[in-house]
């Protein structure tokens, strides 16, 4: 659990650096600060359970156990990336750990998660489906339609709202009339649970219960993890949009950092040695370095690859 | 002598015209028939040729001015003997009558554009009504007569529809669409029109009725397979006409002095008789040396500038036309030229020429004077950049110092490759040639 959180943090820090020196084309939406809710939720699932996430995608596959090489290579636009260079930062998805992708249209993954759960149920599999989405996405029509259908058919889904307080630059309080996103669950007849997203163990507990419900055929749960992202919405936003203060960010970093909190908890209460944790930090650093080396030494895709994978049975219809 | 050039009347209803453009400036040399100015009248635009060769002494009416018909618009200093076709200094408002010397057998006066249009559309200029000054045939007259779908719309071409298939067929077969008559709607050229088109034998239907083809079974003709020479002539002449942009200049040369000189030379050397054509060859060579910009050959990569004047002479043989070359004619005496020409012509007729003797050269001379032809235009022999077409020397009335006189006039039409030689240069060449012809002693100096 610690390892995975550390992986996310180190990977994201490194990704941000590499993006700044121009090796990552396009944008980069990083998850530093959200490691607790990501890992807590992912580890409550089996490897064969489904997962769909959003544009802030990097943490999700790492949280669910994906290898870093393919993820880093994808960020650096190499053909050895998990998406063969076709997806990039917003779609960092390793289907071997999640099966459903990371979709960057806000809210679009919600009904898809429900559908995967339906598919599992129809095939008699006891898999569940985890859907990561943000506070902003909870205002989309697909939130309503997807959760309603899941609730109606009692589908084994865990809808996990990563409420980091802001939709790009807009505080959630100004766009939602409810205090907590989870309060909306009642409107669909399903349980809604609020949890401290920075407390990885708490998240793990809550999601595990939701998973149990789901596997038992009791239907979906809406979990809201209160969390925080340290960096801006996206890495190259340019100017300071002024929607939060540096103090606020500093405050969260100082007092609500999920890794620091977990570190403290397990060394204090569970007898884990500091040294062991530092050892993990070191190993993770090497892992991330290796992943970066792998990415940097991988070739770029051939231009002709642009026309493959549009269809399964033919190339794109380029005249 | 000074000639007043007046605004001509094109068409009965024209009362005035606006000069839209002068193509020449004061002091420029003019060649008879060369486009001198453009006039707009009654919504049509017409190019007007210079009525005489000479020098544009003064532009009396500037561009953008509108004046009534017959207003003096320019003063031209005529060269030597003025052409009898020049606009008379009359006050009448009528269209000036065509000059008396227009002979039946000769090609009628036509602008170079008209000649080209006639050539391209297979129109016999003899059948075209001229609407220009002095009955001169303009391009629009040719189009009106040819009926190839181009409306006589005051100098503006009306585009003929061509279906894409027909265009492609034309490209494939190397056929000039300007020559094809369309049978589709609105005169559109369709593929079948192109595929069934045959060169040269198509005369414009309304100008000359085509001779009615006789069915193959009625034996009014016999098919004679082409000789190699005929094939080559056909190929070279077609290639010349299709690829070389010809333009034409005409000069009327008074040859009395030349004839007198010839008589005296032949009296001095009775066994080495010199002909008029020998003078012509020498004059051409001398003129080319005087105007080196005209002594050139066009190639795609570069312009070849010759340092000598190798003049080809057209010789008619039983098999066809061949053009043996008198090399370095500029440095040869008339008698040497005469001897070589006679020898080359003789061997040409026997088929005894080596390729070196008929390949190359920078200019040709073709002389049909001995057949009584007064004036004609010839086709450039590639790779030459020009050809002088020489007519017969005929006694004609000329105007000298305001009085009528008689002179022997030989009309020469120069055809030039516009890729290599521009109008002014050609004009200069012709002018120099004419000077050499009219003052034969200058050939000695």
């Amino acid at each position, binding site marked *: 659990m610690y390892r995975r959180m550390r992986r996310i943090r180190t990977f994201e820090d490194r990704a941000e650096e590499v993006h700044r020196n121009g090796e990552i084309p396009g944008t980069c939406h990083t998850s530093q600060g959200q490691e607790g809710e990501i890992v807590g939720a992912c580890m409550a699932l089996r490897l064969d359970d*489904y997962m*769909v996430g959003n544009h802030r995608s990097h943490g999700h596959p790492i949280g669910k156990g994906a290898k870093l090489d393919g993820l880093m290579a994808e960020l650096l636009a190499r053909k050895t*990336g*998990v*998406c*063969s*260079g*076709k*997806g990039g930062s917003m*779609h960092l*998805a*390793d*289907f071997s750990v999640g*099966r*459903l*992708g990371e*979709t960057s*249209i806000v809210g*679009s*993954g*919600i*009904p*898809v*998660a*429900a*559908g*995967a*759960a*339906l*598919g599992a149920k*129809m*095939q008699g599999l006891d*898999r569940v*489906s985890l859907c990561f989405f943000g506070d902003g996405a909870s205002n989309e*029509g*697909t939130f*309503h*339609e*997807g959760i*309603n*259908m899941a609730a*109606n058919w009692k589908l084994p889904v865990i809808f996990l709202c990563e409420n980091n307080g802001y939709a790009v630059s807009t505080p959630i309080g100004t766009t939602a009339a409810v205090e907590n996103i989870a309060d909306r669950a009642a409107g669909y007849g399903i349980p809604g649970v609020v949890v401290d997203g920075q407390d990885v163990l708490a998240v793990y507990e809550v999601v595990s219960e939701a998973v149990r419900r789901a596997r038992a055929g009791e239907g979906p749960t809406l979990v809201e993890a209160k969390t925080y992202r340290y960096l801006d919405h996206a890495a190259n936003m340019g100017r300071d949009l002024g929607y939060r203060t540096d103090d606020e960010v500093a405050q969260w970093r100082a007092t609500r950092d999920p890794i620091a909190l977990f570190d403290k908890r397990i060394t204090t209460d569970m007898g884990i040695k500091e040294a062991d944790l530092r050892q993990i930090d070191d190993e993770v650093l090497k892992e991330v370095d290796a992943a970066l080396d792998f990415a940097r030494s991988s070739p770029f895709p051939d231009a002709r690859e642009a026309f*493959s*994978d*549009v*269809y*399964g*049975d*033919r190339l*794109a*219809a380029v*005249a | 002598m000074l000639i007043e050039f007046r605004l001509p009347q094109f068409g009965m209803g024209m009362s005035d015209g606006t000069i839209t453009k002068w193509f020449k400036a004061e002091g420029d040399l003019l060649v008879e028939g060369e486009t001198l100015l453009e006039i707009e009248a009654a919504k049509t635009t017409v190019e007007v040729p210079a009525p005489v060769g000479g020098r544009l002494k003064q532009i009396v009416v500037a561009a953008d001015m509108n004046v009534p018909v017959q207003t003096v618009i320019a003063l031209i200093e005529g060269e030597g003997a003025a052409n009898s076709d020049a606009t008379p200094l009359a006050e009448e408002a009528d269209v000036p009558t065509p000059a008396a010397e227009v002979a039946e057998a000769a090609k009628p006066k036509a602008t170079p554009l008209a000649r080209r249009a006639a050539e391209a559309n297979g129109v016999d200029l003899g059948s075209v009504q001229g609407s220009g000054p002095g009955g001169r045939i303009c391009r629009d007259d040719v189009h009106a007569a040819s009926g190839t779908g181009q409306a006589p719309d005051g100098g503006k071409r009306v585009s003929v529809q061509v*279906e*894409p*298939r027909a*265009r*492609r067929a034309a490209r494939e077969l190397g056929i000039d669409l300007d020559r094809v008559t369309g049978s589709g*709607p609105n005169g559109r050229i*369709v*593929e079948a029109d192109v595929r069934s088109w045959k060169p040269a034998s198509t005369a414009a239907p309304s100008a000359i009725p085509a001779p009615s083809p006789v069915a193959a079974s009625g034996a009014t003709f016999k098919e004679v397979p082409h000789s190699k020479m005929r094939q080559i002539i056909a190929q070279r002449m077609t290639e010349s006409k299709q690829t070389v942009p010809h333009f034409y200049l005409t000069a009327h040369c008074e040859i009395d002095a030349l004839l007198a000189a010839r008589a005296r030379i032949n009296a001095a050397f009775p066994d080495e008789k010199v002909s008029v054509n020998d003078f012509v060859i020498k004059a051409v060579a001398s003129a080319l040396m005087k105007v080196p910009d005209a002594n050139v050959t066009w190639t795609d990569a570069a312009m070849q500038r010759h340092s000598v004047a190798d003049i080809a002479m057209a010789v008619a043989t039983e098999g066809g036309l061949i053009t043996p070359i008198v090399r370095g004619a500029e440095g040869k005496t008339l008698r040497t030229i005469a001897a070589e020409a006679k020898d080359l012509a003789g061997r040409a007729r026997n088929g005894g020429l080596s390729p070196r003797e008929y390949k190359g050269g920078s200019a040709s001379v073709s002389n049909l004077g001995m057949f009584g032809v007064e004036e004609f235009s010839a086709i450039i022999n590639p790779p030459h950049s020009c050809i002088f077409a020489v007519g017969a020397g005929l006694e004609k009335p000329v105007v000298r110092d305001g009085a009528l006189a008689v002179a022997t006039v030989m009309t020469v039409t120069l055809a030039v490759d516009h890729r290599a030689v521009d109008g002014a240069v050609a004009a200069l060449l012709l002018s120099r040639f004419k000077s050499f012809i009219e003052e034969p002693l200058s050939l000695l100096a």
Partner: protein
Amino acid sequence: MATKTFLEAIRDAQYEEMARDPAVFVMGEDVESNMFGTFSGLMEEFGPDRVRNTPIAEAGMTGVAIGAAMVGMRPIVDYTMAPFLYPAFDQIISMAAKTRYLYGGQGGVPVVLRSNMIYGNGNSAQHSDRPYSMFMNMPGLNIIVPSSAYEMKGLLKTAIRNNDPVLSFEDVALWSSKSEIPEEEYLIPFGVADIKREGEDVTIFAIGAMVNLALAAAEELAKEGVSCEVIDPRTVAPLDRAAILKSARKTGRFVAVDCSFEACSAASEVCALVAEQAFWDLRGPVKRVTTMNTHIPFSPPMEKQLYPSVEKVIDAVRYTLA
């Protein structure tokens, strides 16, 4: 052989594929009540799990279908009417069309999205859409527009077995049309056009119900000695460009009949194709016959004039001959 209607062909195709593959199921609004007869017998045979009513939540139900498809099912989604695709537009484009590509081929979305096109019936602007042309613009989608019961069955079966999203546009004008349907199973491949009538003078390209208009026009024109070739693409994505060009090159004249609105219609696409690549074989201009670029009004005297008709096709052919 048996004679079946267009609707029966839809029903049979769905039935046969559901029997063949347990992953196939249908979902949509009111499918259980079988409003048009396209689901007859399915519930009884396959049970409520595989014949599901959905809430009126087009985006949601499309997303659910996509999710199910990504994990091994083969859903057929019935939208009732084509304009009801619009609320699901983002799911169709962002999720169905793009998923295989976005993730470098890690997964695919084998969904079939069916809707009918009803127009000319006084249903006004929001309920008279013929939107297949809009979807042609997006890579990643297959689009079938069958012109007869025979085509409907063969294309729909292929659609259900296809591993990528397929949109099926079913013209209501054809619902009661009949074809001879073979007993044996048959599939019609995508991207293979069918020459419905051979001719020499002009090619008439026609989609879906427009094929019948084209054939009727061809009959009329034959009386005047004009020989029309009618080509039915059957699928507008993939489009059988080769067959279209071959026909256009043969005849040298091209008319495209398409019930879409004219702007950016399928007709526009094929005319551009012909003008670009068969230009030198043309004898005349290309011509589109489409629905006029205005909203569909309610009142019949306003509505009837807007759609393609046999007369308009004949006029278009004459235009290319002029």
